[in-house]
């Protein structure tokens, strides 16, 4: 074979000068090269992931992502910007931009289809989120198959996908929300707040949750949504934010929602404040309690803002934690 090996230049083997030599070798059943100049198609990615947990099936649904032109002070508000940037660089992440993605979860118990949160809806569709309904279809679900929608908390990226053009997106669903959470957000006087983002969030609740209240059940921590799905107190991110524990045939899973919102920073540095947390200190305490539990029990989990497909494990790392995405554990 050595005698047939081309003596080639280092650069441009099949382009430029090398191309003629290469073309001369092509013969027989192979057509002449066309150099198709295939058009670039643009970034694209999968939108759902499904696996078994005991007798349940869990599907994560990609609602989309928003590009944000900064990291600090959204994350690490109580830290120096240089420290946050250095930590991001150490972790192969850009320091001046990030994406925040949104991942609702569907649990099919075999008896009911239970969806956790609904994505951003129309509110941010032009900016790249609010695409849960499209991903749901790709995953094989129709909106009328959703029996129960659980609202982990009332922020717009979780509830604005419930209604579209003033109509419920999931026509057969009943709703489950935390009573503390709903009682806080449904107060009309929030609309009079001097804080603009509070008004925007409260308006999203008035538009997308309040009209569905008559089909809703309001629960406390420790309550079962259906057999195998139990609410877990995780107040701090919002006044009544809750996680949901899933258990089937001895297998456990935690939907931790917004306990931790950046897959590197908010795990490794749980004390760093996040501007999305309404009570930053209560959120820190909750973060440590929930992450300790996931790490100690070595259970799989889903986080609403973890990188898609947003399923993974939590390990202790010094005084903080590390997100370890699931690989093949749930596919075997």
């Amino acid at each position: 074979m050595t005698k047939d090996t081309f003596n080639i230049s280092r650069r441009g083997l099949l382009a430029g000068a090398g191309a003629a030599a290469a073309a001369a070798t092509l013969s027989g059943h192979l057509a002449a090269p066309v150099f198709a100049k295939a058009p670039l198609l643009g970034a694209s990615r999968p939108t759902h992931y499904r696996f078994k947990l005991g007798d349940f099936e869990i599907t994560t649904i990609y609602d989309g992502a928003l590009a944000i032109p900064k990291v600090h002070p959204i994350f690490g508000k109580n830290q120096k910007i240089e420290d946050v940037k250095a930590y991001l660089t150490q972790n192969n992440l850009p320091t001046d931009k990030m994406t925040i993605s949104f991942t609702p979860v569907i649990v099919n118990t075999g008896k009911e289809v239970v969806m956790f949160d609904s994505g951003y809806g129309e509110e941010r569709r032009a900016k790249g989120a609010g695409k849960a309904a499209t991903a749901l279809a790709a995953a094989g679900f129709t909106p009328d198959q959703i029996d129960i929608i659980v609202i982990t908390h009332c922020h717009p990226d979780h509830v604005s996908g419930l209604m579209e053009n003033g109509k419920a997106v999931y026509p057969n669903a009943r709703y489950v929300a935390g009573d503390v959470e709903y009682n806080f957000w449904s107060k009309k006087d929030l609309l009079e707040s001097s804080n603009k983002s509070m008004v925007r969030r409260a308006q999203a609740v008035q538009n997308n949750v309040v009209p569905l209240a008559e089909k809703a059940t309001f629960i406390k921590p420790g309550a079962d949504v259906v057999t195998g799905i139990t609410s877990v107190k995780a107040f701090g991110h919002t006044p009544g934010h809750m996680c949901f524990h899933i258990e089937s045939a001895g297998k456990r899973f935690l939907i931790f929602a917004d306990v931790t919102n950046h897959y590197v920073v908010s795990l490794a540095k749980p004390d760093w404040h996040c501007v999305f947390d309404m009570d930053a200190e209560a959120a820190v305490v909750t973060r440590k309690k929930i992450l300790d539990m996931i790490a100690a029990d070595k259970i799989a989990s889903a986080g609403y803002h973890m990188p898609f497909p947003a399923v993974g494990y939590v390990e202790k790392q010094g005084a903080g934690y590390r997100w370890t995405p699931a690989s093949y554990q749930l596919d075997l």
Partner: protein
Amino acid sequence: MVSPDQDGVQRPDWYQFKLGKFEITVFLDGVSARDGPHPTFGSNQPPESIHALLRENFLPSRRFENLYIPVLVNTGKQLVLIDTGNGPRGRKTGSGRLVALMNNSGYACERVDIVVITHGHPDHIGGMIEDGVPTFPNARYVFGATEFDYWNKGENIPDARVQTRELFMKIAAPFAAQAIFINPGDDVVPGLRAFEAFGHSPGHMAYHLESAGQQLLLWVDTCNHYVVSLQRPDWHVAFDNDPEQAAATRKRIFAMLHAEKMPVIGHHMPFPGLGFLDKRGETYYWVPASYQFNL
């Protein structure tokens, strides 16, 4: 209430992103669940050592999954496919999906300009032929010279690779007249350069990509289990032709990637196979990419 039928595991099987001016698409040609990882991985180690490492890393000790990720690089001028997956011979076990996925992605097989074969193993060459004719009818072929010579001459083929050699002679060797044979450091096209990674097979090559200042390494089969061979590069792997040379290659490439903070795609890493290396103490860890390439 609508009857909620369950329909089993479904997973992402393609991912596309930009690297400088290049567009890179990875495809999940297939997966196979098998017993192990021991003794395939850590063949020179007691099973308890591997089981403990796996437990630490949230992995089961008796079953594991292998997966296959061919890579398509669109330079804007040429469409270059690196490896061809398992092809028709993999279909009875659920792999050999590359062609179907490419057709869905908008990249028809006819548009591929260049097929690069990194090494002669079945999960890399199996997709070169479909129904007796070339799967990529308009492509030129690129082989590593050392690798092609090894399989073509057929000397020192271990018993476990006799069938691999037969397959190579049947479906890869016939492309010799239409192929080009390259050595480490040679460019396939500007921005795609062969990188010596011998050991897994005698002439196994990685490929270095560079576009508009952004770099990425396709390490191919340099490292084939994202926990065991990353964290314990010295442990022998039954798939490696020369386990000691393969271990040395792993350590050399890990050190380079970590020092350069360079992203890497591995043919057998968890899908989409794209990540970075972290180093804690003296140990390397696989860190999957998240949003770095979506910004």
